């Protein structure tokens, strides 16, 4: 370690600076807590700049040292900077910086701001650690550290019972995954040392995947993510959109060479099921942050699907674009919440889209940001989301087996169709429609700047020079992410059809409903002309001319299907998942009071229990 190259120093700085920020935040006494909101964003700004420098200058880099040894096997402490992790450190540090900046405004009046920034720094550090670690045990270490800091962040407002409960739920779900992950890591590790047995390799990889399932909120462990929205909104933007939930996807990209054929199948099926599930759920929520959370679940499902289909570069690309546009969406949502909740005598639930409406004029910047990032999420051409979704679709399209090719292509198209629907629904009911609030002020500049930056980062330029096809200046990062022209066209057409359907569905509705009543009229209000643009109007009128009944029936089918599925899922969430959580907690408590019940303080009874235990043991052994 004597002669460090400049890149290695940069790498170390990028990794260490967030930790320094955390340490500084903890050390600063409560009286001077305002200082934290200066040091933390500044340090993160430096981190972000350094990571950009690293991104543009560095070669692939591997730093390795012997960490410890068990028997003859040596466990290295090893960091790897390759194309994928170079990209990821940029994403992590940039989004983290933006969130820090935004938090200066959003959390300005919070009592425990030092703890908040400290945990944010610790989180960033551990996320960077996961990204850079080149060794599964090291990854696990950071993984756990991240779990801890995210627990603290979700439960930042501990005094709210819902927040404490959400934090515990997230923790529990993640620990279930992590227990499997540790087993998987051990299996994989032993596999590496002692021969390759395909069965064990698959088992190990699937166990690790279960850890990913927990962290990336895939089925059946996805239910913690919507609850985690109880945390501060910037935290949701950082953890539950851009970075932490994506860590699982990234881990799968890292261990891609280990994935066996059966494991890939499991991953693909889990991914696409989650994607569908999340999309349907998102369509049925009233809480704006929960809609975004379910949307995240759905998009993560798409990334996992891409990995399952063998297109890890497509997954990485989508991860990359998703980080920015989803962070933008969350920040915009936070801006709405911030604006509304700082209004005097506000008693309504400001996150409920039923209570919102007509914010377009009051919060113009937020509205623009929301539209751009939302359109990117929906996959509207000219935006980054279109390109990345396109590459996933291409991966499905290029599958060799015709059945799976058709199936996955169709399912991904359905997901993107639903994505458009719920995005449009959200914009419609939040920003358009009747004005319900009297006087509002746009958020302060520290909050507006990160939002605008995220919106800018949602444009196609982030990914490629050609707005309709992946090529150009970032391409060297995604050698495998390709897009076929047919897939692009199909994707674009789907988005357009979905937009028309969305307009038809929601234009006449005055308030959002879960059981959406279909209206017969296809008239387009003049007010859309200024919002979505004349293109929408044109296609809408064109659609009117097409076979009404076909479209009508299709929409009916979609609506009823999604309503019944959503009800089923809501029921499942309420009774089965919460029930399982509550029951297991109760079971553990009950078992605890049972084992404790022997401790009545009566020593002779103790002796009897011990002897009885021995005799029972004896019978157990003898028989």
């Amino acid at each position: 370690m004597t002669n460090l190259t400049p890149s290695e120093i940069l790498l170390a700085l990028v990794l260490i600076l967030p930790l320094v920020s955390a340490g500084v935040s903890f050390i600063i006494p409560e009286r001077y807590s305002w200082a934290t909101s200066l040091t933390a964003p500044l340090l993160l700004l430096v981190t972000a700049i350094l990571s950009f420098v690293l991104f543009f200058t560095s070669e692939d880099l591997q730093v390795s040292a012997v960490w410890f040894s068990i028997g003859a096997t040596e466990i290295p402490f090893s960091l790897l900077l390759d194309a994928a992790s170079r990209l990821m450190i940029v994403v992590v540090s940039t989004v983290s910086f933006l969130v820090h900046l935004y938090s200066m405004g959003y959390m300005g009046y919070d009592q425990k701001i030092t703890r908040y920034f400290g945990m944010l720094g610790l989180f960033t550090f551990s996320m960077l650690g996961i990204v850079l670690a080149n060794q599964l045990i090291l990854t696990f270490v950071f993984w756990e550290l991240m779990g801890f800091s995210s627990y603290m962040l979700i439960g930042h407002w501990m005094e709210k019972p819902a927040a404490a409960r959400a934090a515990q739920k997230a923790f529990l779900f993640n620990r279930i995954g992590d227990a499997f992950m540790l087993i998987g890591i051990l299996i994989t590790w032993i596999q590496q040392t002692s021969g390759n047995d395909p069965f064990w390799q698959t088992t190990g990889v699937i166990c690790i995947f279960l850890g990913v399932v927990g962290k990336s909120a895939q089925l059946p462990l996805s239910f913690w993510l919507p609850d985690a929205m109880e945390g501060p909104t910037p935290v949701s933007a950082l953890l539950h959109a851009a970075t932490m939930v994506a860590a699982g996807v990234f881990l799968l990209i890292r261990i891609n060479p280990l994935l066996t054929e059966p494991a890939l199948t499991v991953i693909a099926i889990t991914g696409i099921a989650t994607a569908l599930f999340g999309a349907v759920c998102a369509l049925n929520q009233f809480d704006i942050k929960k809609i975004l959370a379910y949307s995240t679940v759905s998009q993560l499902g798409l990334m996992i699907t891409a990995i399952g289909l063998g297109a890890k570069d497509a997954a990485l690309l989508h991860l990359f674009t998703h980080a920015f546009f989803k962070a933008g969406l969350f920040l915009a949502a936070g801006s709405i919440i911030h604006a509304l909740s700082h209004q005097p005598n506000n008693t309504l639930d400001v996150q409920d889209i039923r209570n919102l409406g007509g914010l377009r004029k009051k919060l113009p910047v937020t509205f623009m940001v929301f539209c751009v990032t939302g359109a990117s999420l929906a996959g509207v051409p000219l935006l980054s989301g279109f390109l990345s979704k396109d590459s996933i679709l291409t991966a499905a399209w290029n599958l060799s087996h015709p059945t799976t090719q058709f199936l996955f292509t169709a399912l991904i198209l359905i997901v993107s169709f639903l994505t458009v629907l719920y995005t449009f629904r959200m914009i419609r009911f939040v920003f358009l429609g009747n004005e319900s609030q009297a006087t509002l002020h746009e958020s302060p500049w520290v909050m507006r700047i990160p939002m605008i930056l995220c919106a800018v980062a949602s444009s196609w330029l982030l990914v490629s020079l050609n707005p309709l096809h992946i090529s150009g200046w970032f391409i060297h990062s995604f050698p495998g992410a390709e897009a076929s022209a047919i897939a692009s066209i199909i994707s674009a057409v789907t988005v357009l059809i979905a937009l028309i359907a969305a307009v038809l569905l929601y234009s006449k509705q005055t308030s959002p409903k879960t059981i959406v009543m279909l209206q017969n009229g296809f008239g387009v209000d003049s007010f859309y002309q200024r919002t979505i643009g004349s293109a929408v109007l044109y296609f809408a009128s064109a659609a009117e001319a097409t076979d009404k009944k076909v479209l009508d029936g299709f929409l009916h089918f979609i609506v009823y299907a999604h309503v019944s599925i959503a009800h089923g899922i809501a029921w499942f969430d309420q009774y089965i998942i919460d029930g399982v959580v509550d029951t297991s907690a109760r079971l553990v408590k009950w078992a605890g009071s049972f084992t404790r019940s022997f401790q009545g303080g009566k020593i002779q009874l103790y002796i009897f229990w011990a002897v009885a235990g021995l005799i029972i043991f004896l019978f157990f052994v003898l028989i």
Partner: protein
Amino acid sequence: MEHTLILSSILFAAGLMTVIVKRNAIMVLIGIELMLNAANLNLVFFNRNNPALSGHFFALFVIVVAVCEAAVGLAIVLRVYKYYQTSIPDQLTELKD
């Protein structure tokens, strides 16, 4: 010769029952002495033909240990008496869950 072993089993079981049944710390102590003696009987019996006399020595040390245990035990019982005015072990339930 099995009757000696039967006796030792009975002594052991009787000691064990005394320990659990009797509501008096000193009786519990007596029960423990019975259990120790059951073991001693075994040790001496099994050493019938052993020229190394290891069983005998073991029994000897058991007796020494029994003395120490009795001395310490009785001292502890007396101290408990001072605080609780009772020697019924099951009535000492200040420490419990």
